[in-house]
């Protein structure tokens, strides 16, 4: 089995699997629909960080008891909307609404007194909602221009039909990430937005390499259109590269997640790493399994 996989001699008939993969995709689409409909009904919420909603955060390390947290949630200086504690770490984070500067300073000193630490050791962050909105709106603008550009590029290099397939694979990865964030209620920070943009890059990169290989095989077999034989042969051959590449891409990111968890550092870097990790796995999957039902439709029988 391994020898065959390695030689690219596995004889999986991908074309015959198209109906099955199509059904898997339909189930996935239904899943996305359910998630997004529940989100629009307010059953699930995207957990936006303070950068998007505006407000203040206070993070510090100290020993604490559950009663301390309850006391702080009930304080009369600032309304604390959320708190977060971390495994393997004595770090604790409070998120409060925006107040006057005097209130914020008072709250800072209150925390310092409560936990007997120096007020300078508290990481303080104050953000107006415009900052996150600016990142998001410029990100979305970048995304739209980027996608149009990609459609154009792939249409020139390959065919217009192929660019639509690439676009579908791309949206698939974006939806998977968004759904996971919705379902598990992970916090969305500006880093997450950046990571999502990167996922698009990965997904495309993978798909472009696949298309290139398809075109090479077509030339080798002197075909002007894609055939079942070429499709099967190409996907069998490319399997090993896909596996190896996703391993080499995922390992450094997995080590960030792993180390971050061991050290107890949940910060910007892990904010990047999580969506990237999901995206790489999903990108590898989509470039092979999501493209097959659509490429099969392109084939002239």
């Amino acid at each position, binding site marked *: 089995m391994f*020898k065959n996989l390695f*030689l*690219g*001699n596995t004889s999986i008939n991908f074309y015959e699997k198209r109906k099955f993969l199509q059904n898997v995709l339909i189930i996935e689409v239904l899943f996305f629909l359910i998630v997004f409909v529940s989100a629009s009904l307010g059953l699930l919420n995207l957990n936006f960080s303070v*950068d998007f909603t505006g407000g203040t955060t206070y993070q510090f390390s100290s020993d604490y008891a559950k009663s301390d947290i309850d006391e702080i949630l009930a304080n009369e200086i600032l309304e604390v909307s959320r708190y977060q504690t971390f495994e393997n770490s004595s770090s604790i984070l409070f998120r409060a609404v925006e107040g006057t500067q005097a209130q914020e300073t008072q709250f800072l000193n209150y925390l310092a007194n409560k936990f007997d630490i120096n007020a*300078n*050791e508290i*990481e*303080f*962050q*104050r*953000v*107006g909602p*415009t*900052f996150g909105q*600016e*990142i998001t709106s*410029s*990100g979305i603008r*970048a995304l739209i*221009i*980027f996608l149009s550009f990609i459609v154009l*590029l792939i249409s020139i290099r390959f065919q217009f039909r192929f660019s639509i397939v690439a676009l579908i694979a791309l949206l698939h990865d974006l939806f998977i990430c968004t759904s996971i964030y919705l379902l598990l209620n992970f916090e969305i920070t*500006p*880093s997450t937005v*950046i*990571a999502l*943009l*990167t996922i*698009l*890059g990965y997904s*495309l*990169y993978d798909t*472009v*390499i696949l298309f*290139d*290989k398809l075109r*090479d095989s077509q030339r080798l077999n002197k075909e002007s259109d894609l055939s079942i034989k070429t499709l099967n042969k190409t996907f069998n*051959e490319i399997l090993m*590269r896909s596996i*190896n*590449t996703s391993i*080499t*891409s*995922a*390992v*450094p*990111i*997995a*080590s*960030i997640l*792993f*180390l*971050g968890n061991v*050290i107890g*550092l949940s*910060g*910007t*870097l892990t904010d990047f790493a999580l969506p*990237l990790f999901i995206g790489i796995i999903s990108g590898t999957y989509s470039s092979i399994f999501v493209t097959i039902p659509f490429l099969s439709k392109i084939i002239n029988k």
Partner: protein
Amino acid sequence: MKRYFKLLFLPILAIGLFIYVQQTSLTPKLGLDLQGGISVILTADEETDPEVLQKAVEIMRTRIEAFGDVQEPEISISGNSAVLVQLPGVTDQERAIQALGATGLLTFRPVLDSSIDTGYSPAFQYIPNENDPDNPTKISVPGVDEEIGITISDNPNFDSYLLSIDQGYPVIYHLGPAELTGNDIEDAIAVYPENEWIVSLDFKAESEDKFTNLTKKLASEIGERRRLAIVLDGEIVSAPGIALDVNPDIGITGGTAAISMGNTDTGESANNLAVILRYGALPVSFERSSIQKVSASLGEDTLNLGLQAGLIGLIIISIIIILYYRLLGLVSVFGLSMFGLLFYSVISLLGKFQGFTLTLAGIAGIIVSIGLAADSYIVTFEKLKDEIKVGRSFEFAANKAVDDSWKTILTADFVSLSAAFLLYILAVGPIRGFALALGIATIFDLLFTRLYTRNSVPVLVAKLDNTRLMYPIKNKDITNV
């Protein structure tokens, strides 16, 4: 021979640059999120003229330099109406805000009375009490602090009672409404003509008459009432008196004035006053839309996490690649190491000469690019295997594989490069750092594929005779297909 030159070019360049960077002890310039500090985003009104914004940035820069002690402050316009201020190494928030100042409204206001003669604030009035001579009745002006008699919230359009530190002594002045503002000033410089420092002040042409009329009025007064207070954001910066030889019928004409600093000043106060006069008021008011404070320890932790994760990731990848691709794996691990050295050196050099700062987003971009660089080798090696499989000689297969995979990598990297380029142009803040790191890495990947991989693989493969040295597979298995 030419082939060896090409394949060695990048490794030699990488090692050379790395040695140079080490010798000159350059390190990448770290962003605020990795070394600690304060980052403030100030947002002005949407329709602010870009030139006005540019002017405000210059004023802030001068202010921070004038207050000194901030290492490499970075102040830049971000987007249409926001100013991003980064003060690395600074964790004292008050200082940052002091250095930036709020709106910084500079006004000139006539002195009506002071505490110099009485010893108490002119906002207080004591009426002798006949029954109890030791406890006179105190009457205070509304809106002042009951204890010391200073106006609580100052409005330059009305009378105020403000504190001034005059040569070390506190004095409370009663000030009239503002007659001139910082906008009336054309220029101010500190000069040392003879024996003492003076601040030479130039008013704008359209404000000359206002200043002349004001000094006429003041010159007709005596004592404290000859003083003109310079007030910045409710604080008296200086309250110079009008010289005794100014004629009350003429005033100070010509739109220029000289403020004498007295012969005890060493130039420092004169310079500070000139800076405040020149740059006191920002031409536009800002709202602080974000303050981010990162302590040095958190920054260091994050940097270490990034470095450790990168290193561990690289080691694991190297082991996998060498186990799988054998000698070819060694070629790629050597190439990846050179890629790393070159990247490190170039980032250090960019930090020195272009002010490029390495942020967390940049580190994420680098980690992503390790994966992309490794993939270029995998694509080439898989191509080579396909060629050997169809029965071609090793040497021919290697040459064909590197040529074909170059085209694939060129297409794929072109997509990555356009993504990085578009992100860099269209995005703001941290996304830009990420895009730049990704873009640089992609260009390096192209260079390495073209020069290093394309020549080293055929050179090596031509000397081999067994697939076991390249893949975990026997000669007979691969050729029997």
